[in-house]
């Protein structure tokens, strides 16, 4: 049975959870006009890498990335997957710490960080322990519950927009791609990378079609554009660049008298947090696959709890927001590795496999 639908929903959830908080900040920080250009460039990188990755995966169909790399050699597999594991652990730490901070800034002013981080980690560890099937099923449930809210908030967020702020559509800076080497833009790519690598680790009993995933990823373009353009159109570039979470600020300005709640931001935050928790459990599951293969002594509940403990203690060591941003910057190198090298390697191995099969039918 084709389970592409579940995979697509999970794919959307993981991306949408990442888009709305840090991504608009980085894009607005990287250029002054023509932001769509940066968004679409990032997306182009995303979709082409995704296409390469799924193509490679479909060519070596029943194998996952770990088996594929191990087929070449143990050392090769170890060398290839170690940076990837580091990337995943880093991204878990950053995500937990960053979202805990966001939660305290936006609505739980009195709650200490450690409890929020513990909550995130406990829930995602629990889901992860139940296995990949439950992650996907939870994904379906969460999507059914929260997508309506999300759509409502996205529609409402256009309440205070002034379309003139979109102009000028282009300036010299955007046209020459000068922004691509700037730090914020390089950091912004995190929203495009974190979410699709899990495709290579899905076991064969959850079959999916790569082509459908690539098509489904086109559905993310509006969300990327909305997250950047709603704050820009509401506040203008000058003011939007002053906010650490521009999209949240823009949603905060929405005034709806017929809604029973004063702040629609709450709906939005809660659904985002559910998405992020699922993203975390997925990331944890992928990391555990790699760890368990690398250190066969570790069995499931122990390995999972151990990983959670490590992540949690590192999270506690991160003192402030600028440290989170520094971590994110340090993670750029593993991120590029994960974004480019892994899909290309999978593609190359897939091509080689097919050639070998053609020679020896």
């Amino acid at each position: 049975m084709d389970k592409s639908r579940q995979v697509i929903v999970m794919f959307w959830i993981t991306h949408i959870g990442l888009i709305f908080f840090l991504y608009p900040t980085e894009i607005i920080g990287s250029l002054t006009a023509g932001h769509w250009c940066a968004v679409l460039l990032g997306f182009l990188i995303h979709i082409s890498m995704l296409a390469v990755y799924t193509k490679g995966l479909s060519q070596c169909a029943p194998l996952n990335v770990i088996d594929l790399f191990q087929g070449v050699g143990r050392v090769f597999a170890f060398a290839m997957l170690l940076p990837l594991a580091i990337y995943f652990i880093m991204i878990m730490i950053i995500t937990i710490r960053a979202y805990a901070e966001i939660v305290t800034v936006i609505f739980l002013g009195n709650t200490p960080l450690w409890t929020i981080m513990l909550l995130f980690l406990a829930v995602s560890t629990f889901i992860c322990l139940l296995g990949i099937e439950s992650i996907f099923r939870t994904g379906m449930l969460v999507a059914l519950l929260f997508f309506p809210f999300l759509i409502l908030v996205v529609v409402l967020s256009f309440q205070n927009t002034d379309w003139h702020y979109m102009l000028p559509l282009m300036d010299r800076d955007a046209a020459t791609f000068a922004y691509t080497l700037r730090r914020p833009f390089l950091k912004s790519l995190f929203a495009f990378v974190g979410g699709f690598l899990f495709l290579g680790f899905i076991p064969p009993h959850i079959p999916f079609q790569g082509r459908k995933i690539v098509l489904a990823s086109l559905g993310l373009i509006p969300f990327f554009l909305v997250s950047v353009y709603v704050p820009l159109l509401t506040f203008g570039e000058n003011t939007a660049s002053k906010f650490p979470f521009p999209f949240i600020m823009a949603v905060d300005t929405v005034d709806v008298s017929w809604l029973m709640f004063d702040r629609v931001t709450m709906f939005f935050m809660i659904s985002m947090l559910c998405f992020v928790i699922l993203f975390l459990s997925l990331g944890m599951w992928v990391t555990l696959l790699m760890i368990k293969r690398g250190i066969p002594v570790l069995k499931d509940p122990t390995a999972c709890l151990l990983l959670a403990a490590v992540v949690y203690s590192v999270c506690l060591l991160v003192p402030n927001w600028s440290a989170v941003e520094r971590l994110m910057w340090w993670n750029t190198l593993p991120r590029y590795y994960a974004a480019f090298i892994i899909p290309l390697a999978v593609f190359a191995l897939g091509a080689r496999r097919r050639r070998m099969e053609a020679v020896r039918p």
Partner: protein
Amino acid sequence: MRISARRLVLFAVVLAGTLALSGCWDIKDINHRSLPVVMGVKQIDDTYKVLLLIPDATPSRTDVKIISQSGSTIDEILDKIDRNMENKVDLLHLKVIIFERSVAEKGLSQSVESFMRARDISNKTLTAISVGALEPLFDKLTSSSTSDGTEMYDFFEKNAGWSPEVVQTRIWEVFRSMDSFTRDVVIPTIQPGLSTTIESNGAAVIKNGRMVGVIDSDESLLYNLFKGTGTQGKIEVMNHATVKIVADRLTRSSELKEGQATMKGRLHLKVTVLETVGAPTEAEIKQEIDEQLSARFQSMLRAAQAKEADILGIGQYFRDKLSRENLRQWRTKYYPFMKIEFKVHVIIQDEGLLKMKR
């Protein structure tokens, strides 16, 4: 058997957890909180003074009390108030912030920025400027008969007492205008009324966070028309007739030739006749509305142009015609010399319940 014992322990732990962790942290019950509805900010030399209007609900009736404190920054003052009060001051439900005129003339930037930064103050909070001193206004708010502290909010609220001659400006709009090249803002001015609690007589023109001029109520209506905030129900008084606007639409086009900005605005109004003096014809009424509104619009714009305050955000329409460098100089280089052609196109939808002379 062993498994069931383990399950029992697990169950006990989970139960204990749910009981202990109710999801509240350092929670203060609602009866230990004070929820100010209105905040007033005034400035005497370098010290700020903050007045808070706090509804004080007892089972039988709702009273209002005023608390004031002064200090060098607004946060410090709020801290002091919090320290001295038996309840926790929670600004989450603050609805209106009133600045005294002198504060607005000196500059709102500092205070608006701290309001935006504060987590507990919503950026949707409405702003107003008090023409006179704050104390009489607050006294009036407490002494008025039905006072449960929400009059000020109801006055501005669209589904309550708001009327189209009153401008609604929220704190985030003021914040946006502070850094904008092309957009200034007006803040409604209020004063204690003679028979009503509050009286509004127009709005203050705020340029980059500083008050530079005033517009009157009629001009506020035009401002609302231009901004597109529904002006339905407005009664327009002229020499010959009174009409009610039932629908409005504004089309704009902008042009930039050799550094001369030109703006063409066309306001389409649908009106219904409420009252006539003498026997004017339809054409006369149409012409009169056009003349009156255009003249009023021109004079408001002249005044704003003289102050280099782009309250209508006309610069927005030139964003694609000017480079960013030139846009920076919009207020000084282009806006004061901008020409505007403003026409009002009136459709008289119906004539009320009486026929008019053809």
